[in-house]
């Protein structure tokens, strides 16, 4: 029987606006890239919902997250110290899936690097050498993380201020590469980036698209239907990010309705 569990922070490192947290897990813990931990961030009763965090890495006995300070919940989590225990559920959600024969590119925007970096490691372990592109706003935002991922995962960086890597957005970087023969595109990042990327990638109908989505979430296990995205089938229907996703095949989603969302 699954259960919520307490996991101790065994390592914590700040990289500018994000903090990497390594949690000590049970030896039986196993997770795929794209899955998330659903974490209780703070005093029960004041902030009431858990927050989903995509795994940045996971192995038997440990799990890593990348926490970006975006509000009181994430700031609370980023402020925890080594030795403190965190209340987690997981791993939850549908992961990325890939085939060893694919020529694939990985694209991340901002803190969306977490599941993409994990995917890159999983692919490397299977002998695949994906090309990873990561877009950030300013070179300094993530401190040494771009440099680390450049060395470790051969990531190509785009920064909008041009201070690190290519000057421009990650999609502009991608276009500048004139990539040919791509079988699959995997991405996580801001909603607008995913929409633009889907438009680019869908020009070639054969290209597999897998995108990890983010949405405000309550239960995390498909019960409340709170965290939905528009589905292509049935017309007008929805899929839950927590259970049906967070990773979706591009064809499963209704991109027209996704584009129409102007609320946030």
């Amino acid at each position, binding site marked *: 029987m699954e259960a919520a569990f307490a996991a101790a922070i065994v390592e914590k490192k700040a990289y500018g606006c994000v903090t990497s947290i390594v949690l000590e897990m049970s030896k039986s813990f196993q997770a795929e890239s794209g899955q998330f931990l659903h974490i209780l961030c703070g005093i029960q009763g004041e902030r009431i919902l858990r927050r989903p965090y995509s795994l940045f890495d996971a192995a038997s006995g440990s799990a890593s997250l990348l926490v970006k300070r975006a509000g009181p919940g994430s700031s609370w989590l980023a402020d925890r110290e080594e030795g403190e225990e965190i209340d987690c559920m997981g791993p939850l959600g549908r992961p990325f899936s890939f085939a060893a024969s694919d020529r694939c590119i990985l694209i991340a925007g901002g803190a969306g690097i977490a599941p993409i970096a994990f995917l890159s490691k999983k692919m490397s372990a299977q002998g695949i050498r994906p090309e990873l592109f990561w877009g950030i706003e300013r070179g300094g935002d993530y401190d040494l993380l771009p440099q680390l991922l450049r060395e470790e995962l051969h990531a190509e960086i785009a920064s909008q201020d041009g201070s690190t890597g290519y000057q421009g957005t990650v999609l502009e970087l991608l276009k500048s590469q004139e990539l040919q023969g791509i079988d699959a595109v995997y991405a996580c990042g801001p909603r607008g980036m995913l929409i633009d990327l889907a438009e680019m990638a869908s020009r070639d109908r054969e290209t597999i698209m897998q995108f990890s989505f983010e949405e*405000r979430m309550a239960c995390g296990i498909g019960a409340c239907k709170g*965290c939905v995205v528009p589905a292509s089938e049935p017309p007008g229907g929805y899929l839950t990010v927590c259970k049906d996703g967070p990773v979706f095949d591009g064809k499963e989603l209704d991109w027209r309705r996704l584009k129409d969302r102007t609320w946030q």
Partner: protein
Amino acid sequence: MAAPEGPNLAVEITGINLRNPLLVCSGTFGNGREYCDWLNLEGLGGIITKAVTLLPCNGNPPPRLWEVTAGLLNSIGLENKGVEAFLQEDLAWLNRFDLPVWVNVAGFCDEEYVEVARTVSDSGMADAVELNISCPNVKRGGLQYSSSATEAARLTAMVRDAINLPLYVKLSARTADIKEMAMAVEKAGANGLSLINTFPAMAIDVETGKPRLANVSGGLSGPALHSIAVMAVWEVAEVVDIPIIGMGGVWNWKDAAELMMAGANAVAIGTLNFANPGAVVEIVGELRSFLTRKEFSGVSELVDLTRRGGIT
């Protein structure tokens, strides 16, 4: 004095025997399947399933959730697969457990409510129907009935005639006088009441000036709602003779005991399930400790205790 084996947690309401008085609220527990990996369903007193409508319902556009201080706004909009699939896939599955099931029934007009309730009753797989006339998230049905005692009573009588199960009516505190509403549906044939539904509420993003929810407004649940629920139960318990399931922002065993002391015969846990899937089972244990500490022989002694002068 408490019996040697500990206080009796079992309660009986409208002929349904519950092993303990803690249920789970409609919409916060799916149809049980989603949670069966997280706790033993037979540790619950009962389950109230997510609202079901006659036909599949897509629900409202996202964003559907917004967290506020000590509360949650939702505008799910009754997303569900329709009564036929619900019976075949979910209710049939739930029936393998020794667990009383209330089915929350919603609709967009009189006939739909009646048809869904009749179908559920005829299936023989439910223990009770909970009539959802107070959903704040649909334009037709829902709140339209709960804003008028006459309308609520009319629908209650129609559904009462169509089913062979205990009928609970779920009321909103967003009404001029909840006592009048409660008395009207009791007179129309309701066998029990669920108090209270989420409260209509709204939040705005000041950076954009736009509503946080795509549906503009939603229903408020969570601790922020709790004391409103206590007052509603307190007022209604005085004027009706039918059982009340108290619900609204229960966050710990004290909140559950409080609703019972205000007059509820049973209590349902809602939004807390999201933060802690094992909450109900934990609260049952804590309630047992409280009863033992206070030397109550059974949990039913808490019901309406405050009106009877409290613990003497």
